[in-house]
C-alpha cells in the first residue's frame, strides 16, 4: 500500500486533522500571547513591537504560508471527513438522546469549525487584510524605541483598539469567536492525541483536563481583549 492509501484511510485522514489541529493550537498559543499585549500596555508600544516583529521576521514569513496550508488542510479534510461520516448513516433516527453519552462540542466539531471559519473571515478582513494589503486610515505610523533605537512602524494597536472601542459588531464577533474556539479545543485537543495513538486510560484523563484548561484559556483570553476595550473605554 502506498502513502496515498494511508491518507485516504479513515484513520489516515483523521491523522492529518490531528496533526494540523495541534499545529494550529501552537500557532494560536503564540497568537494569543502576543495579542494579550493589547491589554497589558495601553500605550500600544508593546503590541506594535510584536506586530512589527511578526511582520518582518523571515522565519515568520516562511511560517505564514505553512500556517495557511495548515488551515486549508484542516478545513478541507474536515469537509471530506464530515461528508464521509454523514454518508455512513443514510437513514437517521427519529429520536436520539445523545446528550447522555457525549458532550455537545464533541458531536458538533464541524459546526463549531464552520462558525470559527466564518469568524476567521471577519477577523482576517478586519485586521490582517488591512495591515497586509488594503491599508486603513486607522493604521497611522508610530515610532517605537527598540533596543534604544527609534523605529518607525504601523500603529496596529490603534487599528485594533479603535475597532473594538467603536464597533460593537467586531467586539461581539471576536468574543464569540474566542468562545467557539475554546469549545472546539475542549474536544479537539485531547481528541488529536487520541487519534495519533498517544493516549491510554491513564493519560486520557490528564489530556481531557488539559484540553479543558487550554479551551478555557483560549475562550477567556480572546474574549477578554474586546471586553477590555469595551469596558475600559
Amino acid at each position, binding site marked *: 500500500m502506498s502513502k496515498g492509501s494511508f491518507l485516504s484511510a479513515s*484513520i489516515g485522514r483523521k491523522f492529518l486533522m490531528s496533526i494540523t489541529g495541534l499545529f494550529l493550537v501552537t500557532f494560536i498559543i503564540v497568537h494569543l500571547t502576543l495579542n494579550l499585549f493589547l491589554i497589558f500596555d495601553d500605550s500600544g508600544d508593546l503590541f506594535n513591537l510584536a506586530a512589527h516583529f511578526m511582520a518582518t521576521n523571515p522565519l515568520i514569513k516562511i511560517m505564514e504560508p505553512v500556517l495557511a496550508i495548515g488551515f486549508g488542510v484542516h478545513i478541507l479534510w474536515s469537509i471530506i*471527513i464530515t461528508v464521509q*461520516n454523514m454518508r*455512513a448513516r*443514510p437513514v437517521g*433516527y*427519529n429520536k*436520539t438522546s445523545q446528550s447522555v453519552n457525549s458532550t455537545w462540542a464533541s*458531536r458538533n466539531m464541524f459546526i463549531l469549525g464552520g462558525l470559527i471559519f466564518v469568524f476567521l473571515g471577519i477577523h482576517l478582513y478586519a485586521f490582517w487584510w488591512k495591515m497586509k494589503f488594503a491599508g486603513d486610515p486607522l493604521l497611522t505610523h508610530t515610532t517605537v524605541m527598540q533596543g534604544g533605537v527609534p523605529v518607525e512602524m504601523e500603529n496596529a494597536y490603534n487599528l485594533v483598539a479603535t475597532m473594538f472601542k467603536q464597533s460593537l459588531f467586531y467586539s461581539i464577533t471576536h468574543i464569540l469567536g474566542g468562545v467557539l474556539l475554546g469549545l472546539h479545543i475542549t474536544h479537539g485537543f485531547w*481528541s488529536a492525541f487520541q487519534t495519533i495513538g498517544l493516549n491510554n486510560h491513564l493519560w486520557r484523563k490528564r489530556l481531557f483536563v488539559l484540553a479543558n484548561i487550554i479551551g478555557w484559556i483560549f475562550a477567556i483570553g480572546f474574549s477578554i481583549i474586546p471586553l477590555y476595550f469595551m469596558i475600559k473605554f
Partner: protein
Amino acid sequence: MADITLKKIYVKVWRQNSAKEKGRFETYEVENISQGSSFLEMLDILNDKLIREGKDPIAFDHDCREGICGMCSLYINGRAHGPDRDITTCQLHMRKFNEGETITIEPWRAGAFPVIKDLIVDRTAFEKIQQAGGFVSVNTGGIPDGNAIPIGYDDAEEAMDAASCIGCGACVATCKNSSAMLFVAAKVSQLAKLPQGKVEAKRRARNMVTKMDELGFGGCTNTGACELECPKGISISHIARLNREYLVAKLAE
C-alpha cells in the same frame, strides 16, 4: 421483588416488511406489564397480542437473553440498548419505564447495517471485518504448553477487557458517524496485548481497518458515546491503541 404492574404503555415501533420495502412507524398499546418483566418479554406480549389480532408480529433479533450473545439490538428512546448502563436490550427491565409512557423503538441505523425486517438489521459487515484479520494464525495442534509464555496479570486483564466485546453493534448504532472503531479496536487491542497475537499485530490492524473503511462505516471523531453505550463498557483507550497499531503498521510499510 414485588414489582408494580404498568397498566398501559405505548410502543412506537419501526415496521418495515423487507429490505426493499419502505418502512414506517406504528404505535401500539400494551397493557398490564409487570415492571419485573424484561423489555423483550414486553415485546413478546405485544407480539402475542398482534398474532391473536391477525397482524404480523414485530421481528426483532434476540437469542441468549442474558446479555452475552450480542444478538439483540434495538435503539430505544434514542439510545442503543435503551435507558440503562452496561446492559444489552435483553437485560433491560420495565422498571426503567413509567405508566402511560410512549417508548420509541428503532432498528440500528447505519449504512453498513441495512434493515432486513422491522427491527432486524444485517450485521454481516462485522463478520467481514473479523474475517479480515481478527485471529491468530495458528492451526489446531502442535501447540506449546499454555504456561510456556508467561503473560503478566495486567496485560491479561487488559486483553480480557477488550475481549469482552459481544459484537452487538451498539457502538456503530450510537456513534453519530456510524463508526465501527470500537468494535475493531476491541479485537486489535486484545490480540496486541498478548504475545500470541503480537506476532501479526501489524498485518491485523492494517487489514481490519482497510476492511472497515471499505464496508462504509464512518470515521471516529472521539465523542466517546460508544464507550458509554457499550454493554460491556469497552474503553475508547483501545481505540487509541488501534490508532497507534495502525500508524505503526503503516510506517513500517
